């Protein structure tokens, strides 16, 4: 069996483990799906009148506008949860056992990220289904929906890389869990929940440069208007940048952990 196939099997096995782990424990899946769904429902009902504000982009409904925001929230939480799960593995000694196994070290991180990406895919399907059930149209059609799902899945993978790096560096689940408020801050300071033009300063300016805003717009465009090459490319480039940063930080943290013992 070639090394590539063997490594792919290791990544798949570890990925399946992390997916099963998440779906077996309601306390892990609840924040990723229930919390954003609840907030989507409340914000759609509570701030739905916003579509009448001058400057609000033309949308079929506020729900249609908010779907991308809910997906972003879910994928950020999935990345955070993936980091927590990896930190728990470190605390319990499971990762140490993996380090002694004859498998490449990167497969340990990629396995965890595969689980996070699967959660991102699940979240995108979940929110698109919710949108369709409650009357939101996907203007980009099937291709648009597939594009949104692909962007959310890869963004979850990328954000998961940052979570994994922090978990590997600190080895503490409570430290990674403590990043939850930061996830909320990054979300609020992006265009996840409202058009940037209508936000209040300083959130407005920060949202303009927040990398997450580029991903949000990339996911939102196929839903509210149709596929836009410029927005899609900006989202892909941002996701690639976050992914590269996550891998770099994970690599450094892994080396540090192995050196420190």
């Amino acid at each position, binding site marked *: 069996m070639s090394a590539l196939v063997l490594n792919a099997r290791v990544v798949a096995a570890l990925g399946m483990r992390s997916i099963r782990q998440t779906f077996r424990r309601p306390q892990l899946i609840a924040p990723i799906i229930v919390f954003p769904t609840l907030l989507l429902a*409340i914000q759609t*009902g*509570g701030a*739905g*009148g916003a579509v009448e504000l001058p400057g609000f982009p033309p949308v079929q409904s506020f729900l249609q506008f908010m779907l991308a925001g809910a997906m972003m929230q879910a994928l950020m939480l999935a990345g955070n949860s993936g980091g927590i799960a990896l930190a728990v593995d470190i605390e319990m000694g499971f990762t140490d056992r993996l380090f002694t196994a004859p498998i490449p070290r990167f497969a340990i991180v990629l396995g965890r990220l595969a689980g996070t990406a699967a959660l991102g895919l699940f979240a995108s399907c979940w929110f698109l289904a919710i949108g369709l059930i409650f009357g939101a149209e996907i203007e980009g059609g099937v291709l648009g929906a597939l594009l949104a799902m692909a962007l959310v899945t890869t963004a979850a993978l990328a954000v998961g890389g940052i979570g994994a790096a922090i978990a590997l560096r600190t080895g503490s689940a409570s430290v990674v869990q403590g990043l939850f408020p930061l996830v909320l*801050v990054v979300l609020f300071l992006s265009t996840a929940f409202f058009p940037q033009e209508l*936000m209040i300063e300083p959130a407005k300016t920060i949202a303009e440069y927040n990398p997450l805003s580029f991903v949000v717009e990339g996911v939102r465009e196929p839903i509210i208007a149709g596929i836009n090459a410029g927005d899609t490319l900006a989202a892909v480039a941002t996701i690639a940048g976050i992914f590269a940063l996550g891998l770099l930080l994970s690599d450094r943290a892994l080396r540090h952990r192995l050196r420190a013992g």
Partner: protein
Amino acid sequence: MEAAAVPTVAVPAWRANLATIGAMMTRARNELVRVPGAAIPGVLAPTIFFLGLNGVFGALTQLSGFSTGSYEAFIVPVSMLQGAGFTGAAAGVNLARDYESGWVDRLLVSPAPRWVILAGTVLAASARAMIPAVFVFTIALLLGAGFPGVDGMVICFAMVAAMAAVAACWGSFLALRFKSQSAAPLMQSGMMALVLLTPAYAPIALLQGWLRTVAEVNPVTHVIEAARQGFVASVTWADTWPGLLALAGLLLVLGGLALREMRRTAQ
């Protein structure tokens, strides 16, 4: 040789109960003093929500139907009540932790009445809820929310304390029902839903469809209206008593459920 009779002084029941409640509140305070970092998430979450919602949805005040032009003023009581919900639910998580470590079992074999044990937990949560409330209130004033007046402030903080008690009853009920800290998301999200399924983001007339219907029957709507009145208008008894009544009802129902679960646990 006969042992000398030891004179016993009967302590009145009410005094013993008060001492037990006081001891439980002191224990909760000690937890906070010894691990100050434990209070940070409870303070951070409502503050982030306050700042975030204000930055994101601030333009909503341009819609006709808003009673104020300041979204800070409109949203600050919601964030304070949200902080109370988080803090109260955290009391439930702590109770579940105490159950897992065997401390609750020891508490239940003590001669203290069950309602006294519950009261200690609930009142500690009410006191602790003042930390995020004061923090968010101060930030809001600094950002220009406008002082709600002494009466408006007193009513708002009273609502926050009582809401934390409601959340602590809910958390205690779930903690004793599931006997595990893994019920924590249910404690937190239950309270979050109760606080946000109200005119939290916009006046009730501007809410859309189902949320408007839910908000109209949700008792916490009256609590929010009462806590908000000083920030957006003047304080009136007509806006206050429905909030007090709603809190009394919630305390009665959720406190009753928590007490029943505590009795079941003891059996």
